């Protein structure tokens, strides 16, 4: 028997991966199928699922009312859920953009630092991660409050010049949610960009200089193109989690700034409608897949992900 296994390469592969395969089937495939089945169900008044085949949840998500009595296709049209979806996409794009703008210079700085220092800098990037994520978000609450640290400092500063200061309203606004998201996902962009920048051979810069390219030209013709795989990988790592996030928006948005993640979470708890929650999760998943598919078709997966 062992003889057979030794000769049969595909079988070896199957056996070696069987544990992770089992893991994927039990914890990913089966829950996904359940989610799909539940999403076609109906909720009972007490919040349990009635298994049937109904598209009502998807119709409701699209903004139409299955029980609508007003004539015409758009009689009861309600763009609420579509707006929530667009709000999430908008926030994910904004977060990713800000994260790239902040992460790129920092990664560049670390990659061009003396080799001995790079480890220290990367270590420092990760240090905040030792504190629980929720606690870090609460720390932002302290900073952003109307009578918080930032307003206190600004008030003191303006007070020095004898100026009157009206505290800024920062907490429980969309801006606060954006700040929280950018803060949370910054390291996920720094590391891949750093990796790709660090791999660029110094001789390429020398060659560019020899051929008469100025700093700006070198950056756009050499550095940027060669670091794109890192940016692409980082974008995927940031964009997808932000699309499904709900903790930051709950805490810093005052439960008022509703993203798809919040919508889904609420269906399973407060609203007691797992069928609608399942439908919303599937739509989110499919949408994220489609966006990622077109993105990677255009820019590639980012070598950096393949390296892993």
């Amino acid at each position, binding site marked *: 028997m062992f003889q057979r296994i030794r000769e049969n390469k595909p079988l070896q592969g199957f056996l070696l991966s069987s544990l992770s395969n089992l893991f994927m089937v039990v914890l990913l495939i089966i829950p996904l199928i359940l989610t799909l089945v539940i999403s076609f169900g109906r909720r009972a*008044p*007490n919040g349990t699922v009635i298994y049937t085949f109904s598209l009502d949840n998807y119709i409701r998500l699209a903004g139409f009312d299955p029980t609508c009595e007003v004539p015409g296709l758009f009689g009861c049209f309600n763009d609420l859920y579509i707006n929530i979806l667009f709000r999430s996409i908008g926030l994910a794009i904004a977060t990713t953009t800000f994260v790239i703008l902040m992460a790129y210079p920092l990664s560049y700085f670390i990659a061009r630092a003396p080799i001995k220092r*790079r480890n220290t800098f990367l270590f420092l990037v990760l240090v905040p991660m030792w504190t629980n*994520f929720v606690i870090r978000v609460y720390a932002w609450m302290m900073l952003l409050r109307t009578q918080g640290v930032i307003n206190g400092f600004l008030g003191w500063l303006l007070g020095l010049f004898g100026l009157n200061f009206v505290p800024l309203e920062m907490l429980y606004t969309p801006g606060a949610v954006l700040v929280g998201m950018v803060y949370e996902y910054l390291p996920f962009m720094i590391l*891949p960009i750093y990796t790709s920048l660090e791999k660029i051979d110094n001789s390429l810069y020398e060659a560019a200089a020899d051929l008469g390219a100025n700093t700006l030209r070198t950056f756009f013709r050499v550095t940027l193109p060669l670091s794109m795989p890192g940016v692409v990988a980082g974008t995927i790592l940031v964009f997808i989690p932000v699309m499904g996030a709900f903790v930051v928006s709950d805490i810093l948005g005052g439960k008022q700034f509703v993203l798809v993640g919040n919508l889904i979470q609420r269906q399973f708890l407060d609203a*007691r409608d797992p069928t609608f929650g399942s439908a919303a999760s599937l739509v989110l998943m499919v949408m994220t897949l489609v966006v990622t598919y077109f993105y990677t078709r255009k820019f590639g997966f980012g070598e950096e992900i393949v390296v892993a």
Partner: protein
Amino acid sequence: MIKSTVIWKLLALLTIFSLSLTACGGGQTATEAPASQKVTASGFVCPEPQNKVEVTSKELNLFVWTEYIPQDMIECFELVYGITINREEYSTNEEMYAKLSAGSTTYDLVQPTDYIVKLMIEQNLLQKVDKARFPAYANYDPNYLGLPFDPSNEYTVPYQAGTDAIVYNADKVQNPPKSWADLWNPEYAGRMVFLDDSRAIIGLTLKILGYNPNTKDEAQLKEAQAKLAELVPNIKLFDSDSPKTALLAGDVDLGMTWTGEAFLAQQDNPAIQYVFPTEGAVLWQDNWAIPAKAPHLDAVYAWLNYTNQGDIFWMMLRDFPYTNPNKAALDYAKDAQPDLYKAYMDSPITNVPAEAVKNGFRIEDVGEATPIYDQIWTELKGGQ
């Protein structure tokens, strides 16, 4: 030089970290101290149990409202009985109901409010309270027993009662609101905190419109939804965990909150006022109930008997001052804690005036209409 594989390991670690941390919440486990001492970390000397219960369980799993059980109460119980308390918290009845009906069998005690009790009984989620094992039941004031959601207290016993009413900071609000309808005033735009409580908020809106706050009529509910949509711009945040925090920190100036939060906020800042609106405040009572599959029943009765002793339950007046249904606790406080007792009795927030009780209304189970309420709530909060 750091190899890219190292970076990827770090990144993988980071991902695992952030994923595991997002799944927040979870139980808090208190530490055990030697049973002989019986003094809590804050220096409180624990009284002996008046009705000592034989207990073999080593654990008691509480599923309770956030910020609602005094630390001394928990520590004393752990010291006296040598039982470890695991506490998980929720901030809406719906959340608690969803977890229990999804089949959680680990909880020993939950704290449902009025309307959700009836639903839980119907769903066979609760078991009957055995009064023979609960002598401290005699400590309750009969006014808080036999309420409509459980007329003979078969399944529930009181924890604390209270009201949802208007709260405002007199230093910041020039025209104090007197009625629920006043909260629609555009002057208050973006200045209010509201409880994250769908039934109470939809209920008070129905009341303004002159309807039954527990209506099952879809047309009336649609009207309430349209009315509520006008209120949403005034609300800066929904918070059922600690609404007083935003009020005291100056992030909001007024809103709707419940008894204990208003009482504590007023102690910190005397400018905070609590008003029973002219349309009537929401009256409610939180109760102890035992889930049908509670694994540590002996510990449950030990807990109920011990914590309902007058010399333990008085600490609610100190830590979470809501309306107290425990006669023995008030009697005990009268002599042992005269200041707390006086503050409790003198404040209309805790010692609710009779006419406010008469004018108030309760939230009841709405059966088949529940999905409409839930959908209205989802649409309102998503509509920013």
